[in-house]
């Protein structure tokens, strides 16, 4: 059943460009793939590792800037720039992980937020390298492809590859250990597992995936500015993860679809995206903390149930124990 669903969705994704009416919609679909990949990276850490990061846009940004500077400013070929960005982004994750993993829980969240904002501050202030608030624009020659259709399939292929690898990783003994450390750190430690190292691996994998999404980001927009690594972007990714269902493989992609579509629709009518974003945050957290799909199912089931019984519904907003 599940396999059929995955095959069906993959097939839809493959023929989607020919179903869409134009390049504008194709661009949005590509954005969903890239932000989806970014949300997947946040979910790797938050969902499986139990560590919510509010600074992940920093990795997206470091990778995108590394690419833009190597390829745009210094004129290296796109593939060398990809290599440089992968290297620098992952190295940044390795360093940040050493700092952030000194703490856990809420302190971890606070420190990742601070780290992310430090990266933002560098992108904003270090104008010699980053061109400050104006950002760096790349010409057509500086990216792998400027053709929307090619970009869509490149992003789709990268996303599919990462998903397959991640699924295998989560099922591997190491993936099981990561979930074990999330749920029962003390027991895992007693059993002889090196909980710190396991968390660090989760952090590295997550940072690497975020780096990949950053490289794709700069391909599709051909532009990078400090706004791409603001706290808002990190928070949007966390929202995608929660909306789609934290700790599920495909949930973040669904969440990314919902958030990117909402953002694009809303931008046609209002400048007040942050307000709307905040309202969606509050709605999801209060009404559907387990995610849109299970949340809607539960509320629908509750409504049908109360309709059958003819009794007043007793809203079963059970707080989940996911807070830990």
């Amino acid at each position: 059943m599940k396999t059929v669903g995955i095959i069906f969705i993959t097939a839809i994704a493959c023929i989607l460009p020919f179903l869409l009416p134009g390049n504008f919609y194709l661009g949005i679909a590509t954005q969903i793939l890239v932000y989806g990949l970014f949300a997947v990276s946040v979910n790797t850490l938050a969902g499986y590792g139990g560590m919510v990061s509010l600074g992940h846009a920093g990795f997206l940004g470091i990778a995108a800037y590394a690419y833009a500077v190597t390829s745009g400013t210094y004129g290296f070929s796109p593939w060398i720039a990809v290599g440089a960005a992968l290297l620098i982004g992952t190295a940044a994750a390795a360093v940040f992980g050493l700092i952030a993993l000194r703490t856990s829980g809420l302190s971890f969240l606070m420190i990742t937020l601070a780290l992310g904002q430090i990266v933002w501050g560098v992108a904003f202030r270090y104008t010699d390298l980053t061109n400050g608030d104006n950002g760096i624009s790349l010409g057509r020659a500086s990216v792998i492809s400027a053709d929307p259709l090619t970009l869509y399939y490149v992003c789709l292929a990268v996303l599919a590859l990462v998903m397959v690898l991640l699924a295998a990783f989560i099922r591997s003994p190491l993936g099981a250990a990561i979930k074990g450390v999330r749920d029962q750190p003390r027991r895992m430690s007693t059993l002889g597992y090196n909980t710190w190292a396991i968390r660090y691996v989760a952090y590295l994998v997550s940072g690497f995936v975020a780096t990949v999404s950053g490289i794709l980001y700069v391909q599709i927009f051909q532009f990078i500015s400090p706004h791409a690594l603001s706290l808002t972007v990190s928070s949007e990714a966390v929202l995608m993860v929660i909306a789609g269902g934290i700790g599920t493989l495909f949930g973040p992609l669904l969440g990314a679809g919902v958030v990117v579509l909402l953002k694009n629709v809303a931008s046609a009518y209002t400048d007040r995206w942050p307000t709307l974003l905040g309202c969606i945050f509050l709605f999801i957290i209060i009404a559907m903390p387990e995610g849109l799909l299970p949340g809607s199912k539960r509320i629908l089931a509750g409504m049908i149930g109360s309709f059958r019984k003819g009794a007043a519904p007793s809203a079963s907003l059970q707080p989940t124990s996911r807070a830990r």
Partner: protein
Amino acid sequence: MFWITGLFNSLAFAAVLFLLAAGFSLIFGLMRVANLTHGAFFMLGGYLATSAIGAGFWIAIVAAGAGCALLGGLVQHLLVQRLAGRELAQVLGTLGLSFIVADQCLLIWSGDPISLAPPAFLQGAARLGMFAFPLYRLFLIVVAAFVAIALWLVVERTTLGAKIRAAVDDREMARATGIPVSRLFTVVFCLGSALAGIGGALAAPVLSVYPGLDTEMLPLALLVVILGGIGSLAGALIGSVLIGIIYTFGQILLPDLSYVILFLPMVIVLAVRPEGLLGRQAA
């Protein structure tokens, strides 16, 4: 000369940081709620003060504090309390709220920086030999010191403080002995938010108020709290001075990299004492 002036400016900035971080630390230490709306309250306080300045400087400061206290109380009552026991939901809820507050500030006060004139008697500078210290910055340092002492007295020396500490240590037991825990937490939240608002208002003559001030100050406050030790008032004080000095000198000496230098204290302190300088060992 350079070092003395720089140090003085660092302390003035540290005073602002302390007002901001103390409120955050108070709420976090007592309630285990990381209130990410705190930075937005700081900015809102600044904006409220610029709007109320017509009624006089002191009224403007009080208005900023009262406005943020009221809002903070509402946040605690309507959001945080409802999500009791769900730490992550509380954090993300206040984060969502911070976007709303910041965006509404942008809507109301527009995107241009607004500065605030200090009151007449605080303009000018105090001269000490060859040094000139702006009076207003001196005033900031005095206010922060006063707030630090007052907070310490309230928490450690009053019945209210004793009740709050009891509620933190064992919520159920405190309830059983008749302490109105929920109301106490609302008081704490109001107090913490008021400190953020007052901090923003007092900082307005120095920093001015502009969109993005919230996300600029919040990480600094988080760093202060993490470095100083969570829930420790003295830790917040030391952390503020530390970050104030490093940030101010960083901006003078290496303007491009003033943010990167913030890594330095973070790396050193976390390497040696992950619980912060004056933090208690995590349970």
